[in-house]
């Protein structure tokens, strides 16, 4: 039962990754693209978290921690960059 559910959940997460990738491509301004990248990072963490019990590899959760960390630092750095470049 759980295998079928995890396949459904993984495909739902992949569909939402594709939709937010469409916003990344379309996004009229730079902050729109930043929101999309932030969402893609969170969805990648969710994908790894769902895949971890199915494979039984515990190291997946460590990878999820690292991706969450890097996503946050990247968002803050990119926002700083946008603020400084577009104001001058």
């Amino acid at each position: 039962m759980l295998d079928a559910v995890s396949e459904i959940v993984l495909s739902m997460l992949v569909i939402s990754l594709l939709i937010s990738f469409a916003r990344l491509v379309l996004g009229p301004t730079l902050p729109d693209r930043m929101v999309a990248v932030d969402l893609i990072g969170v969805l990648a963490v969710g994908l790894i978290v769902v895949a971890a019990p199915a494979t039984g590899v515990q190291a997946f959760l460590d990878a999820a921690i690292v991706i969450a960390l890097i996503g946050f630092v990247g968002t803050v750095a990119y926002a700083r960059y946008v603020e400084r470049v577009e104001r001058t």
Partner: protein
Amino acid sequence: MSDWITAGFWLVGATFALLASIGVLRMPDVFTRMQTSTKASTLGLGCLLIGTAAQMSDTASIMRAASIGAFVMLTSPVATHVIARAAYLTDVPLWAGTIVDEKREAMEHAGDTP
């Protein structure tokens, strides 16, 4: 029993993630898009993590899932605030139906041009 808990929480979390990405695609401006994308990082990822923690029985995995949850819940407001600040200060256009812009009013009151 724990299979049912896991399946329920995973389905709820994936539904929230899907709704958040549809909202990010369809909402009219940056600030409303940000509001929907936060649903994926708090409710969506939180439910997925609870499902995973119910499935993995050892303490190390549960602690890792809890630390991912705590980290994302702590950092996502900060990241959202930073993006909103950058968007407002770089004059990203607001949606035409916006009725309250307190930051603009405060700036005009202080005699400051943004």
